[in-house]
């Protein structure tokens, strides 16, 4: 087992897939000659090793980057493109929502759009609301897309490899803070199927469903609650679409209590979808009302003290758990 940070694990997945399949190429803003020299960033060193033909720095043009992926995919390539920050998804969204996601359907299944759009998400850098704005629920709302948000280096690697080989367009959202968090990653090739949640920590008293950076927050809270003999089960959804309902429902049926935790704002957030599924299919098992712990419905503040209190914390999560125990 090697220890890698998530940025390195993503880099390894990209590298392995590019070596395996000559049709895989990367395009995006500053992915080759980056402004940062950190070897921990996902595309570090790839330009040098694969050349400008396969690692393309593009003009600042999100719609064209996503459109390049749509066109190249229908012509048989396997594009992996990067939209620098999640809020810039809006600039690329017509290409993703109206084209990547719908053209297979409109072609009666004749044309295929195997592409990956990687995006950085997550607050915590004082970068402000136009850099930090988690929009996974928008993508999840669009039929034809798959939406993946890994929480660990091993998951990121295994899921990205699956995403690149998937015949559908996949939105792959990477939390920037997680790039620098280390974790064990198997040396051998590991593919993690899209659409499988994972119980990151078993527990008997309450289920916390979460994904991406918030998995760490949940595990921190679980550690603290364990000292009070409260067993928190942490379900890492990993993939929002298609969602692994079975794992989620099995956990809720076991614990009878649910908190959904995400960084994104609350109204219309994906917690609502998780909650609805549980209400529809496991209502009889609930022993208490469910709770959501999320960012408030405001643009992410840039000022550090405000931003700190914007982000859901272990304390907030523990308070929500105590409310329903």
């Amino acid at each position, binding site marked *: 087992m090697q220890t890698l940070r998530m940025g390195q694990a993503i880099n390894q997945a990209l590298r392995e897939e590019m070596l395996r399949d000559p049709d895989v190429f990367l395009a995006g803003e500053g992915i080759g000659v980056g402004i940062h020299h950190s070897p921990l960033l996902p595309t570090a060193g790839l330009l040098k090793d694969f050349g400008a033909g396969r690692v393309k720095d593009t*003009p600042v043009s999100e*719609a064209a980057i996503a459109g390049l992926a749509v066109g*190249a995919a229908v012509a*048989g390539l396997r594009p992996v493109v990067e939209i620098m920050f999640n809020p810039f998804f809006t600039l690329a969204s017509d290409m993703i929502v*109206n084209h990547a996601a719908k053209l297979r359907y409109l*072609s*009666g299944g004749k044309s295929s759009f195997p592409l990956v759009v990687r995006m950085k998400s997550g607050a915590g850098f004082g970068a402000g609301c136009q850099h930090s704005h988690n929009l996974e629920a928008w993508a999840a709302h669009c039929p034809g897309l798959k939406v993946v948000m890994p929480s660990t280096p091993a998951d990121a690697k295994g899921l990205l490899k699956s995403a690149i080989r998937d*015949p559908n367009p996949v939105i792959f959202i990477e939390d920037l803070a997680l790039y620098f968090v280390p974790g064990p990653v198997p040396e051998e090739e590991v593919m993690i199927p899209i659409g499988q949640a994972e119980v990151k920590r078993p527990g008997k008293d309450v289920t916390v469903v979460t994904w991406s950076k918030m998995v760490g927050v949940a595990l921190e809270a679980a550690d603290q609650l364990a000292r009070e003999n409260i067993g928190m089960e942490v379900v890492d959804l990993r993939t929002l679409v298609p969602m692994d309902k079975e794992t989620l429902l099995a956990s809720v049926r076991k614990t009878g209590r649910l908190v959904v935790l995400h960084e994104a704002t609350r109204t219309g957030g994906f917690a609502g979808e998780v909650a609805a599924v549980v209400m529809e299919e496991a209502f009889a098992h609930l022993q208490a009302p469910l709770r959501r712990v999320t960012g408030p419905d405001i643009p992410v503040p840039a000022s550090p003290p405000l931003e700190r209190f914007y982000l859901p914390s272990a304390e907030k999560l523990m308070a929500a758990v105590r409310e329903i125990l």
Partner: protein
Amino acid sequence: MPRKTIQMEKRIDYLGILDADGKLDAKLDPDLPKELLLKLHRAMVLGRRFDERLLNLQRQGRIGTFAPISGQEASQLGAVATLRDDDWMVPSFRETAAEIWRGRSLESVILAYGGFNEAATLDPEDAPPTLPVAVPVGSQMLHAVGIAWAMRYRREDRVVLTFFGDGATSEGDFHEAMNFAGVFQSPVVFLCQNNQWAISVPRSKQTRARTLAQKALAYGMPGIQVDGNDVLAVVAAVAEAVERARAGDGPTLVECVTYRMMMHTTADDPKRYRSDEEVEGWRAKDPIKRFEAYLVKRKLLTKPGIAKIEEEIQGQIQQAVEGAEKRMASLGDPLEMFAHAYAELPPHLEAQREELAAELRDSREGGGR
């Protein structure tokens, strides 16, 4: 620091070869083979007559909304006639005649305007590669650049021809696509069918620029304006652009000045926004009329010959309508809506499909409550 003028080449050619009466400028004659001239003529007439029939079908409620091409036969067919079979065509939504040239069946067009996605699967796998129509205006130009990227990635000498209208030049996608193609020197021909109207917005209110072709200059590519109702001029200009792209010398913007003789789509009434005089003025410049006059003068066609072509085309259309309506009657299983959202059926769609299947079973058992 002085203030000085940066010298730039600013040149936009305008090309016309056949005038409105079908008189040829012999110096500019692209000297196309007789077979190609006759094939173009037949395709233009087919495009027009098919439009007329589709309009009847739409008015009778037998198909849904469609976008007519009448008046634009020369600009789209002249352009597409320059492509090789392995080149790509990326249409907007007003290139039915060009799609048919590329091997799309009339039946498939009728089926698509009837709302059936199966339309795309009717045509043979080895038909020249063509994307489905794109509704968000200008969006297809970005796909064209992506396809061109793939062609170059594989070191193939195939080119991509993409169509759009005058309205699309106001979209961000136009500018992003032109810029990418310029930077990457993509093998793309950007074919603007300037038909003077973006639904109800006239060309004069679309941009302050004198020509649309000149927008090419800002992206470092050549631009040319063509009489889009003159099929010979369109062939000549686009052939030059295709050759440039194939040789690796990058993209070109071709502006075909033409006119949409009918409505934007069957959902609007052009009488509300433009005058009959304007339409009649353009009718005098009709692309088919002038091309026929030329072909008759060259003795490649005769009046009875034209009548025979018209008759054959009506037969071809009739057969397609019958075939398509027969096929439509056999399609329409509601469960089909789940078939192609993803390559496979994910669990949540399987469940939703089952919900619908149960609903259908109930309604059948309930005797159509």
